[in-house]
Structures are given as C-alpha cells and as structure tokens.
C-alpha cells in the first residue's frame, strides 16, 4: 500500500535534490575569476562593444547587485523556465538549444533502456532457471561487457562498421549525425529510415554495456525466488512448469529490475553523453561537449539542470510504480 505520506516524502526529497542542484549551479560560476559578461562580448564581438551592451548582458546573466540579490534573480529566472542566454550560440538561448536537442537524447536513452531491459530479463530469467552452462556463460560475458567503457566501444564500432568495412564501396553505417542531409525532417519514410539507420550504432553501444547489469540482477533474483516457500507450495499443488515460471518466478523477479531501472538511468546518461560525442549525435550530450570546449557556462549549467530534473523525475516515477506493483511493500 502506498500512503499519501510516502508520496509526499518522496516529493520533498525530490525538491531538496533540485534545490541542491540549482544552488550548485548558481554558486559554481561565481567562484571562477573573470567577468562572464565580458567574456561573451569578447568572444562574440571581438571586443567591439559599448558599455551599454555590457550592462545589458550583465543583467541578463543576473550579475548585478549583491550575491543574495543575484541568487533571488536566478531563482526567479529558473521558476519562469528561463535558463538564460548561451555564450557561444548567442543570441540563441539555452532554452532553445535544449528544446531542440533533448528529444534526440531521450530517443537514444529510451530505446537503449527498453531493449536492454528486455534482453536482460529474458537472458537472466533463462540462466537463473536453467543454471549450468548458460549461467556460467552469462556471468562470464557480463564481466567482460560491463568492463567495456561506453565511449571506447563506440569508437571501435565507428571504426569497424562505419569506416573500415565497405560493401560495394558503401559503408555499413553512417559515421556521424542523426540523419542524412539529403532527407527532409518530418513524418516521412526516408527521414524515419535515416534516423533509425543513424541511431543504430549509438543504441547498440549503449545496449551492449547496459543489458548485462539487468541480466545479472534478474538471474540472481530468480535464483533467490526458486528457494522461496511459495514456490514449493506451487509445485506441490501440481502446477505446470510453465505456469510456475511465468506467474510465480518471472513476475516476482521483475520487481527488483523495476527499481534498478531508475539507478541505471542515472548512470546510462553519462554513457549516452559520451556516445553522442563520438557520433556527433545532436543530443544534449553533444551540446554539453560543445559547451565545455568553448566554455559556454550558461549552457553547461542549463543542461546539467535539465538532465538532473529528468533523472529525478524518472526516479520518482519508478518509486511510485514499484510501490504499486509490490503489494508486500508497505510504505509509510
């Protein structure tokens, strides 16, 4: 049973985490020496500017007044959903950049996560149930695969499948980008085909390094459940193996997998960012990489805030789903 109290408490944790992230966002840039407003003008206009422009940008960046006034101004902007101007892409705002990039990242993350969970659950359930060779094999490859750094695997795939191997003079997969420049974005077949084609290598990279975690967890849970009393009872009742496996084992083993999705989500984000960098995939990871290389601080902060918000919301959702799924959990 989920009580209202539990939901409220989780919600408060969520707010505290957000508060910490936002305050960090505010304090960090103010700890580095130098005037960010000057930096914009120097990088953008090569120093050809007048004092009024400087004042304008300073107020846009909340750099006026005491630290406390700046902090209030910062919160005001955040609560109005305004993440400020980007130094590098100025006058494009951080909001605009994130809005155009976030869908690509969510597409990569969502698809990779879904495929990883499905593969992990099937393999884990099989090897936990059968044990023996399949089990040893799963454990061995899991150790190997989880030790692979995402970005190195991405580079290897890029080198092998997008550069080295050619069939009839054509490469198997595209080297970079999210879709070919020859198609027009929209709901049409060539575009969708191109998007899928371009996302194949990034998604495969993420899946290969993510599914073993789910598989091992599923396997361990299945092994534990096989020792439970209610399974003995089910056998004694004479239920078929298929029913036992489906209704008694797999269904219960899915619970820990559900909770682990939230934690896995927080860690796969880092992987997705690095993979985006390798494939110049136009998601927020690649935008963050660009922002880092050109010291575009507002963009770095904006992306950090949005991705933190996304992960926190995902966590909150999984918490609620878990409590709903498992009637044994009493949350107060």
């Amino acid at each position, binding site marked *: 049973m989920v009580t209202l109290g539990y939901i409220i408490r989780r919600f408060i944790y969520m707010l*505290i985490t957000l508060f910490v992230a936002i305050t960090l966002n505010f304090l960090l840039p103010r700890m580095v020496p130098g005037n960010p407003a000057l930096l914009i003008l120097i990088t953008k206009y090569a120093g050809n500017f007048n004092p009024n422009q400087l004042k304008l940008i300073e107020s846009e960046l909340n750099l006026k007044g005491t630290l406390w006034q700046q902090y209030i101004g910062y919160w005001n902007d955040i609560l109005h959903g305004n993440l400020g101007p980007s130094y590098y892409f100025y006058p494009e705002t951080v909001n605009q950049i994130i809005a155009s990039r976030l869908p690509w990242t969510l597409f990569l993350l969502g698809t990779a996560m879904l495929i990883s969970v499905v593969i992990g659950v099937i393999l884990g359930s099989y090897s936990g149930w059968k044990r023996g060779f399949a089990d040893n094999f799963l454990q061995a490859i899991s150790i190997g695969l989880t*030790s692979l750094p995402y970005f190195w695997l991405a580079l290897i795939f890029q080198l092998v499948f997008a550069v080295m191997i050619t069939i009839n003079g054509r490469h198997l997969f595209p080297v970079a980008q999210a879709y070919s420049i020859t198609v027009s974005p929209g709901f049409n077949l060539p575009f969708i085909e191109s998007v899928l084609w371009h996302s194949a290598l990034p998604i495969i990279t993420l899946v290969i390094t993510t599914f073993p975690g789910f598989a091992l967890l599923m396997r361990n849970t299945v092994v534990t459940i096989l020792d439970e009393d209610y399974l003995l009872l089910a056998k004694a009742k004479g239920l078929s193996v298929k029913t036992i496996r489906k209704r008694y084992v797999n269904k219960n083993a899915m619970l820990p997998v559900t909770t682990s999705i939230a*934690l896995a989500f927080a860690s796969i*984000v880092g992987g997705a960012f690095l993979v985006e960098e390798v494939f110049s995939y136009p998601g927020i990871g690649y935008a963050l990489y660009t922002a880092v290389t050109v*010291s575009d601080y507002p963009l770095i902060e904006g992306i*950090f805030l949005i991705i*933190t918000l996304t*992960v926190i919301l995902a966590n909150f959702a999984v918490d609620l789903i878990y409590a709903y799924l498992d009637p044994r959990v009493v949350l107060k």
Partner: protein
Amino acid sequence: MSDREEEVIKILRSSSQFNRFKDFMKKLLHHRKALTGLSILFLLVLIAIIGYFAAPYNPFNTNAPPFQPPTRQHLLGTDYLGEDVLSWFLLGTGTSLFVGFSIAIISAFIGVLVGVTAGYFGGQVDNVLMRIVDVLLVIPGFPLLVILSAFLPPTLETTILVLSILSWPFLSRVIRSQTLSLKQRQYVLASKLSGLSGFQIIFRDIIPNLIPIIFINVIFLAVGGVVAQAGLAFFGLGDLRSVNWGTMLYWFEAEDGIVYNAWWWLIPPGLGIVALGIGANFLGNAIYELTQPSRGGQ
C-alpha cells in the same frame, strides 16, 4: 571483573580479528578466480613500472612521421604528431592506475567514516548522513562531474579530488548496513561490557571485520575512478596534457584518428581499461564468495 570473564572477552575478540584475516589471505591465494584477478592486476602494475623506468621514447618526442602503423621502431605505431603510442600507453598506465587508486583510497576513507558513524551511532546522525547520501546518489554522476570539472582548474589533482568527493556515497550505504548487523554481535557486546568507548569499539571490533568488504570496494572504486577520469578526459575536461588512457582516447577523437584508421592508437588504452575491469571483477567475486560461503558457486 573476574579472570574468567576477561579470558572469554579475549577469546571472543581474537577470533574476530587477526586470525581470521590471516586465514582469509591463505584461502584467497588458493582460490582460482582470485589468482586470475590478482595476476591481471599485477600485470598492469608491471606495465606501469616498465613505463616509468623503461619507456622506449619520450611520449612528447615528435621525430617520427604521424599516423604510422606499427613498425619495428614503434611497436604500436605513432599518433597525430608522430609521438610513440607504446610509450604513451606504458606511461599512461601508471598515471591512470595512480589516479584510480588515489580516488579509491580517499573515497573509501570518506565512505567508511560516514557509513560506520551512521550505522553505529544511529538516530539523528544517521538520518542526516543518509539523506545527504540519498541526494548525492540521485543526481546523475557524469553531468555533475562535468559541471564541477568545467568550473574548477583543469589539473589532475582537481579530477582526483572531484571524483573522490563524488564516489563514496554507495560504499557508505553498504558499510552502514554491515555496521548495523555487526553492532549486534557478541564480541561487540563484550567490548561494551568491558567499558570501551564508542570510537574504541569502532576501531577494534567493527572496522577490522569490514576489511574484506572495504577491500572489494576499494578495487571497484579504483576501476570506477579510472573509467570516470578517462570519460572526463574524453569529454575534454581535466589536464589534457597529462599522459593517461583517457587523454590518449581524447586526442584520438579530437585529431580524427578514425579518419586515418589508426586502430593501433585506439586499441591499447581501451584494452587497459577492460583488463583492469575484468581483473577487479575476478578478485572482487572471489573475495565475495569467500566471505559469504552460503551464496554463489565454488
């Protein structure tokens, strides 16, 4: 207190500490998985030592032609400036391992301190510490690393510091739950009865019993540290002039190693990371199996 009671306390304590540790080391050296893991880790340390004393070239020496595949003079070819890849790899192994283990030791120290304090003293202390841990565990790690590294000076020390500060929360939770169960053991009760203070009990009865778990976690924290540092370097953060596995991969990406098919430049640093991960897993699993004989194979 009578002599007999003191005797009992002595026996209870000695069985809990040093003898167990010696026993454990003996078992470890006869365990196949543990030996495999130790050999792999030893090999990496050996590579680092060779790199330190006998790298064939100065890694910044640019006398050879760039993007040269492996030859007799340059066994792993050259990079975009004509620098020797083998020398980069040999020296880089040392730096990467140093970074990884520094992070592991600092963050294990914080993690154990927080976990034991929370678990042993409980109450409000526990509550406050674990809420901090909750917040740190929920914020996505890599973006947080990126934002901290972007604003702090780009040195190897900064990277070690930032990664150490962010790596301990998970360990502290494990240590806390272990401490909670150790607190109920008889020999802790014996120590309490003999009038030892909380801190004395923590250092004499609790921490010695956590050593296998701490050891496993130090290994995995080191692997995590190496991978995270490499990821940060690959993202263009930290000291990019430092010679390590991460900067090798960064320059490969930044200088279009892909376009030149420079597999000889790409494969070594990645294999180093993979070997470290596999070695750590073997050793970690072996220690886990030895300390929890009721679960798992062997």
